[in-house]
Each structure stands twice: as C-alpha cells, then as structure tokens.
C-alpha cells in the first residue's frame, strides 16, 4: 500500500463529494458520543452542535487538500478534534482543563490524529501566508487578479467589468502580480 493511502480515505472522498447519505450517516453514527462528551464536560447541546459542525467543516477543508490522510475512522477523528476544541474553549473560559472521555472510548489514535493535523497544517500555512499578503493588495488589484486567475477571464472582460481600458487592465494585472510577489518575498527573505 502507498504510504499515504489509508483504509479510511474513502470517507474523505465521500465528504469531499458532498455525499448526502454518507454525511447523514456521519451525523447518525458520530454525533451521540460527541454530544455525550460535551454534555458530560460542562457544555450544552448547542455547544455540542457547534463543536461537531466546526470539526466536520475542518475535516472537509482538509479533505479538499490531497495532502491529508485519514488514518482512523472518521467518528474517532471527529471525537478527538471536538475534544481538543472543547478543551481550548474551557481553557479560554478559565475553567478546569481536564476532560473526561465518553465511556468505552479507548484512544489509541491520538498521536496519529495530531500528526495528521500537523502535516496538513504546514501546507495550509503556506497558502494562508500567500493569501495574507494577497489581502494587503489594493481592492482593484485583488479584483483584477481574482478575475484573471480564479475566474479565468480575459483582460478584455476584466476591463469591461471594472470600467477601465484594456491596456490599463493588462498593465495593472502585471503590476499587481509582481507587487504581490514582492510582498511574499519580503517575508520569505
């Protein structure tokens, strides 16, 4: 087996594909233990819902990236992520920082889950860093680059949309791209 493949990767694929019946199954199978975890540790149903939704969206965002591998069943993964998030919430509120697990849960996969989180985080940080500098560009620069490279519009369309000349749109596109690159390089250097 390829070192990055895992028996649970199909669960990520189903998530990535917005597979309605799989997602409903995830709620049905995974929500009781998370509800129980949060309710047993000073939280409410609405806290449990918030933790679960956040953990699921976080897992979905990771599923969109090919760098992430799920090495434990998705319920165990969500449980662990929710536990970490709830622990942080309690710390923020200055409350007790120990948390009791749901009965019957034996956590053999904690370390693995944490490694996965770190691996995915490195790639996320790189993209996030680039995008942080993108958002330092002026509004018009951001619009031109998004239309040009995300929406894949021609400079003619960009010019019409922004009510500027074709020549100016083209020149600004080039300047904005290089300005963005300089901002990124300032940090890297």
């Amino acid at each position, binding site marked *: 087996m390829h070192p990055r493949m895992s028996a649970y990767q199909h669960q990520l694929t189903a998530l990535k594909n917005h597979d309605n019946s799989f997602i409903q199954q995830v709620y049905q199978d995974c929500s009781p233990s998370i509800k129980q975890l949060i309710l047993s540790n000073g939280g409410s149903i609405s806290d449990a*819902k918030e933790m679960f939704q956040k953990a699921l969206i976080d897992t979905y965002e990771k599923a969109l990236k090919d760098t992430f591998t799920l090495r434990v*069943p998705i319920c165990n993964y969500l449980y662990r992520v929710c536990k970490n998030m709830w622990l942080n919430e309690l710390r923020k509120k200055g409350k007790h920082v120990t948390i009791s697990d749901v*009965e019957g849960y034996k956590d053999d996969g904690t370390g693995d889950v944490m490694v996965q989180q770190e691996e995915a985080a490195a790639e996320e940080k790189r993209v996030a860093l*680039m*995008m942080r500098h993108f958002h330092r560009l002026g509004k018009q620069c951001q619009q031109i680059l998004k239309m040009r*490279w995300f929406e894949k519009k021609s400079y003619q369309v960009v010019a019409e949309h922004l009510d500027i000349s074709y020549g100016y749109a083209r020149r600004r596109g080039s300047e904005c791209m290089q300005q963005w690159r300089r901002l990124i390089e300032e940090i890297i250097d």
Partner: protein
Amino acid sequence: MSDFYPQIEAYLGDELSPEARAEFEARLQTDEALQAEVVSYQEMIDALRADASQKEAVAAFRQMIEPFGEQYFAEEPSAEVKEVAWKPPQYLWMVAAAAVLLLAVFVLLPKNIADPSRSVSEIALAEMPPHDKLEMFMGNGDSTELAAAKLLFNAEKYAEAYAPLNTFLQQNPTNRNIKLAVGICLLETEKFAEALAKFQELETEGHRFFKQKGAWYTAMTLLISGQETEGIQRLEQISDTEGLYQAQAKTLLKLLRK
C-alpha cells in the same frame, strides 16, 4: 526578472500559440532563472485558486450540513431521520402544513381524545423516542464480540444483544454506556424490574449525562409497566428540571393528562 512576466502570464494563462508554447517550453528546459519564475507565479496562482474555490466549496458544504445539525443536535430529538438535501418551495410547505392539519384532525385527534381506551402504557410506548445508537470504536477498543453485540443493539435486536452486552457489563461494571444499553434491552424485552434496577443505578451514580438518561428511562419503564402514578411523578420531576428530556417529558405529560 519582470521582463519575463508577459510571456510567463501568457504561458500560465494558456494563451500562447502551439508554436510559441513549444518555443517557450524549450527555453524553460535550459533556463533555470525562467523556471524559478514560472514555478513562483504558478504557486501564487494555485494559492489564489485554492483559496477562492475552497471558500466557495466550504460555503456550499456549510449550507448542506446545517439541516443535519438542526436534526441531530435538536434539544428535543426528532423521532425519525428526514431527507434534508432537497428544500421544497414555500407553497409546498403550506400544502404540507394543511395536510398535517387534516391528518391531526381526522386521524390523531380521534385517537388521542375520542379514543379514551388508549392506555398510559400505550401512549408512553408510542411517544418514546428512538434509543441512541451505541458508538462503534472499531480498531480502537472494541473486541469482536462487543462490536457484534453493538451491531445487534443498533439493529434493534434487543433480545439477541442482551446476553453479550450483559457479559461485557459484568466484566466492565463501570461502563455506563453498556449499562444503559443492557437496561434498554431489558425494557424492550419487557423485563421491567431488571430494567428499572439498571436505570436506577445510572441515576444514582452521579454522572450528569447518565443521571438524566437513567431518570428518563426509569420514568418510561414505570409508565410502560403500568406503574402510572410513580411514572407520572418521575415525569413531572424531569419536566421541572432543565435537561436532555425536559421538552419530551412536558409533551408526554400533556398527552397523558388529556
């Protein structure tokens, strides 16, 4: 290096003619500085695309899961799993509401009010929400026997699930999840006295979540087994206390008092 940019942009934007593209790629093979420039701009474009498409995808995903969140984390759990992917237009809700109203008038109302022969036990049984499924911790704690017993329980085969779950409970007497499941198996197979003993143990063990579960199932067992007065008293206590089953206890009390 910015002198390269117009060509790089045309290359990355797939705007070069086949001849110009071939020429550019031939130059890329030998020109390391140009390679570095292309890689650098490609990474920026990839980041921009990944960020923008991810935001769109996440927004769609968030919208998709919201109804599941409402359904599975409701204060008062719904009795059945509903299809949530399709949202009907407004007028269909009105048609549905009218249909439900008619159903209530012609079917439910006569049954609850005009049919006084419906016993407390029958009402309690009919109104009892589905039991929580047992969480499977495959490869992470469950033995094969326990996993099989949980599957039986989750498939509502309570008579068959009882023995292996009870054996596990005897070996692990502090496992309250399994104690609750064993109690439910006993309730479902009408061994009321034994079921009550299990639920009352959960109530007295001091764990907040299981205390509430124990109280609810004690009330339900009392009502279903015909111990109406005690059952209603327990239901009133649950209805007066904020918790998992408060709303259900209130609803059930209203029905029982009709």
